[in-house]
């Protein structure tokens, strides 16, 4: 009996079959991305038709004659049937043509490429703060469940949940900029630093490092810190709460008992084993957080006069600049699709069960 050795049969397959399966998987992902994108264009197109903004009127102005109005209406294709209009819209979007912005008189795509890096810079730092502080706080709350540390962290994250971001922004400016002078004020740079570093990525902190301009970097950094911290606090609140609940469910698993029975330190049990499993769920949460940061940027950027996507969208909306609004919406939608794809790609890295 003692010599009964048996290896579990492993599925073995040839390289050809494996690459065929991989190709099919990739094809599947691309197909679903294409479908999502099509849905997105549908939504933006019909939103553009439904909202009570007359695109013709926005171009010709309300003093134009009947004839001019008609001519422009035909010129921009509004006399065509809806499916034809949609088809033309889709073709344009695929070629990166979102039309011309009314306020800036630049092509919308060009505008978006200019403002988006500013928002990305803000969102990246905010997400960094959210993860680096939120995950450890959530873990810490979970291992101290029910004690005062847990209560404190839960209270702080509830506060982050429920506090309006523009109010936090104003208070932050008042306190840290006006009173204490720890950080720089609104905007991305002091005026004296404008146009010193050449644009490479559009993110000033990175561009200034590339150009080797230390002074510009620090000025940009101190401008960035406050809005990023306030946005970061919001994502921290969400990440910490989710981490806490994921960790609580992991810590009650049988394998945690087994690792304790092996004599591992609580540090290893919590931070390597339990958190290693919690990451599987956290990947989705973090991807969604990043998406919501782009949305949260609208209010933050308005308060901080941050020339990013949020401020651009706000200005376009208030000026009935339809092309710009739809272009911006499309960009946010594409970012969401990209984030979903990215989290699909990251899953197998943190969860061996997702590796095919």
């Amino acid at each position, binding site marked *: 009996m003692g010599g009964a050795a048996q290896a579990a049969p492993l599925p073995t397959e040839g390289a050809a079959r494996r690459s065929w399966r991989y190709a099919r998987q990739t094809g599947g992902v691309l197909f679903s991305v294409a479908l999502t994108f099509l849905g997105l264009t549908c939504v933006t197109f019909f939103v553009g038709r439904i909202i009570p903004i007359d695109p013709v009127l926005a171009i010709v102005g309300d003093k134009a004659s009947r004839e001019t109005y008609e001519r422009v209406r035909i010129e921009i294709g509004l006399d065509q049937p809806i499916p034809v209009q949609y088809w033309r819209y889709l073709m344009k979007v695929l070629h990166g043509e979102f039309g011309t912005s009314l306020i800036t008189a630049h092509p919308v795509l060009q505008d978006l490429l200019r403002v988006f890096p500013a928002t990305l810079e803000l969102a990246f730092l905010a997400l960094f703060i959210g993860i680096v502080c939120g995950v450890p706080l959530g873990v810490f709350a979970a291992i101290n469940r029910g004690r005062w540390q847990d209560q404190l962290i839960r209270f702080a994250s509830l506060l982050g949940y429920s506090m309006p971001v523009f109010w936090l922004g104003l208070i932050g400016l008042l306190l840290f900029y006006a009173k204490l002078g720890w950080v720089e004020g609104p905007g991305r740079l002091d005026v004296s630093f404008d146009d010193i570093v050449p644009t490479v990525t559009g993110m000033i902190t990175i561009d200034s490092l590339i150009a080797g301009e230390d002074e510009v970097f620090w000025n940009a950094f101190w401008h960035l810190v406050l809005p990023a911290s306030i946005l970061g606090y919001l994502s921290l609140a969400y990440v910490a709460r989710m981490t806490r609940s994921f960790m609580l469910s992991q810590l009650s698993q049988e*394998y945690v*008992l*087994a690792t304790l029975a*092996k*004599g591992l330190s609580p540090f290893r049990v919590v931070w390597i084993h339990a958190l290693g499993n919690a990451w599987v769920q956290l990947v989705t949460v973090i991807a969604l957080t990043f998406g919501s940061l782009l949305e949260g940027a609208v209010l933050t950027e308005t308060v901080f006069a941050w020339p990013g996507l949020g401020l651009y969208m706000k200005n376009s909306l208030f000026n009935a600049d339809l092309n710009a609004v739809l272009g911006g919406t499309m960009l946010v939608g594409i970012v969401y699709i990209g984030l979903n794809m990215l989290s699909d790609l990251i899953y197998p890295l943190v*969860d061996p*069960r997702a590796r095919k």
Partner: protein
Amino acid sequence: MSEVLLNVRNLRVTYPGDDGDFRAVRNVSFSLGRERLGIVGESGSGKSTTGRAIMGLVQRPGRIEADELTLFDKQGGKTDLRAMSERGFRALRGQRLAMVLQDPKYSLDPVMRVGDQIAETHRAHLRSSKAEAYKASLDMLNAVHIRDPERVYGMYPHQVSGGMGQRIMIAMMLIAGPDILIADEPTSALDVTVQTQVLAIMDDLVQRRGMGLILISHNLHLVSSFCDRVLVMYAGQVVETCEAGKLHEATHPYTRGLLAALPQLGNRRHELPQLQRDPAWAADL
């Protein structure tokens, strides 16, 4: 049973509750030598809690008390587990005391390679280098009769079968050379054909290393055929202790009732008797 490895006298585990304390384990006493001791009992009889109390793994707010809870080492040194700090327990777990849990599907970390989980125990206790721990893990996989240990080392828990998972679990728990292994329903989650195989591997290792084994099970057949001695637990107390071979001479009505309810080959009966419980069994002995 020559020398004593573990002495337990009047072990009590209590959970405070809203309507009074719940006494999960009540005055359990036994001593363990280099032998196979079986603990049988139904769900909730306190057999698993007894095992966990010895490991110091009873979760808050559970309370462990005992008149004696002593671990003896080969040189005859004594360790009082009652006064043990959490840090002290950590050094004992894995190295002096180890535990195999019921279902390898849940008791192995799903996102870590099984080999690394085995090596981890080695590294934690023997302060070994990565290479030494890897080598020792492969040897240990060999010892639990796993062919091609290099390949299995890199597999994840969801890629191995139940029997293989349980052998990996045994390897993980025995690699740091403990004196006592507490096996809590180690084969209940496995196919019947694999059960005997896993038990045989475990038994072989325990015998060769001169360890003490506590086998916790609800399976009376398994325990009586596999162990040297059997404790029968009911409602948190040990109601009967006897030699496994003399189980048929058991006197307690609970044990007798259980034995009578076992179906036997070649003994045709239309109906197996049902266990008639007497509330007096649950009273303090």
